[in-house]
């Protein structure tokens, strides 16, 4: 299921403002890649270019190439809707559909793909909820509103919803920043399990989290406020945190700025 992503010469704009500038890097399949960097450096924007979510922002525009295995996601004949069906996303704040039950939330993506058979839906919903380590907590309240769960449960529900459609890649935009430490631990464990099946990219402000969950880490920075964000370096997480090749990375990680 998991595919690799090769990004080359990617820039993203909000109207005339360039938010990220000329980024080239690769994301390995079946591994976790973490994006770290100070606020406003464009890591979330960059993440959103990978499933073509950036362009839904008014004025949002992208230049450059994103290759998913051998397919150019920004090719002229590519439908952004089908890109988003192959690349799932989990957001900063848990966002289950408030008008849907737990079950309906997980089944939402399948129904978009045209699966309506009850038995098939039941199977996938259970499998996805088990995959998101949530099944035991919600199996008796499948028909209750998804917004009635705790924050951490809601976030795992969103992960279940994302993996129910078996995406090639899972993008996570600061998935734990609205959660308490115990829920955060649950999500981090889950990320560790999911990487055997999926290519995972996770944006985080929490350096320990990047060190704990990721195999590779990319550090982004910006020269000054209003300047576009740039990729400083990307390497094995262990190297980034012990012996980075750029001084700015070491300064950031050791807390000397940012």
């Amino acid at each position, binding site marked *: 299921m998991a595919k690799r992503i090769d990004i080359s010469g990617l820039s993203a704009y909000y109207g005339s403002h360039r938010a990220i500038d000329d980024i080239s890097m690769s994301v390995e399949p079946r591994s976790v890649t973490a994006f770290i960097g100070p606020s406003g450096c464009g890591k979330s924007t960059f993440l959103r270019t990978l*499933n073509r*979510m950036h362009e*839904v922002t*008014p004025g949002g525009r992208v230049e450059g190439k994103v290759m998913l295995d051998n397919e150019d996601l920004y090719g002229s004949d590519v439908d952004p*809707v*089908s*890109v*988003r*069906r192959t690349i*799932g*996303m989990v*957001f900063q*704040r848990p*966002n*289950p*559909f*408030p*008008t*849907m039950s737990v079950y309906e939330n997980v089944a*939402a*993506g399948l129904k*978009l*793909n045209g699966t309506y058979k009850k038995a098939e839906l039941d199977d996938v919903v259970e499998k996805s909820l088990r995959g998101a380590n949530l099944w035991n907590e919600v199996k008796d309240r499948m028909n209750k*509103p998804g*917004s*009635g769960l705790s924050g951490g449960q809601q976030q795992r529900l*969103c992960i279940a*919803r*994302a993996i129910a*459609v078996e995406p090639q890649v899972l993008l996570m935009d600061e998935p734990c920043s609205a959660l308490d430490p115990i829920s955060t631990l649950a999500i981090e464990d889950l990320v560790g399990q999911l990487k055997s099946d999926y290519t995972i990219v996770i944006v985080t402000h929490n350096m320990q989290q990047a060190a704990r969950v990721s195999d590779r880490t990319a550090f982004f920075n910006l020269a000054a406020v209003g300047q576009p964000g740039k990729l400083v370096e990307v390497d094995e997480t262990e190297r980034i945190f012990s012996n980075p090749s750029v001084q700015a990375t070491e300064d950031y990680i050791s807390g000397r700025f940012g």
Partner: protein
Amino acid sequence: MTLDSPPATAPPPDADTDGGKARTRPGDRIFSGLARGSGITLLVIMAAIAVFLTWQASIALAENQGNFLTTFEWNVNADPPVFGIAVLAFGTIVSSIIAMVLAVPVSIGIALYISHYAPRKLAAPLAYVVDLLAAVPSIVYGLWGALFLVPHLTGLYLWMDDYLGWTGVFAYEGGAARSLFTAGILLAIMILPVVSNVSREVFRQAPKMHEEAALALGATRWEVIRMSVLPFGRSGVISASMLGLGRALGETMAVATVLSPSFLIDPSLLDPGGGTFAQNIAASFKEVSPAGVGREALIASGLVLFVITLLVNGLARLIIARRKDYSGANA
């Protein structure tokens, strides 16, 4: 009644010397006094209207020789007077239902187009034009309806008669199209702005995070609207429709101008005839003889309209409250 509030606005001169209690600031007291005064004033006005309507209506009902609810007649100048609201209730409700059926779907369409489809450069002027539609006085709608709509609807009605005439409801014998259906079409146009404006504001407030959740799952624009915008806006659209329905039920001049009234219930909605509460009050107010209970009879019909409007609003609140658990506001 507004005289109740001024005393509360004047702070007692010894406010500072009252050392025992925490000092309330004069500004706070003035404002809370004004707010409380306004609230009480509103209640007093409402009660006064209700009492007046009931009192006047009871005078007329005591004299009435017909059954007030079932008589197909409005003969208030006769001695003894005979009148009933059956035709008016039928006409008011039917023309409002026609207006709702036509206006609500179109309004939702306009609201979604402005809030989610139109390019930003087009959305603002379009919203402005819809606002403008709300500013047209109802007598102007009435004149336009009588002089333009009525002659131009004959063709449509003949066509409907050809295909749907067998139902009886859409039978049409020709003649001026001054029917309840025409009144309904005109009312639909008149309530379009209020329904679409309120819906538009609600759709605009649909949380971005839920729209993005749908988008990220691979939803098309329509699917995003169906999964996140419409469920969120549901109660708002109901409120908007009720505002529109309130206007349709009470609309006077426009209906009085296009309708050719009669005290019959015609099974066909396309044939001229029928009447509504407000239209009947406007049309017969000048013709009542000062001696009888004509005025009081009209007021009695007004009381019924008042009650119907209250019921409709209560029903809308009930519908909204029932779906609270699943409302978008819990997000």
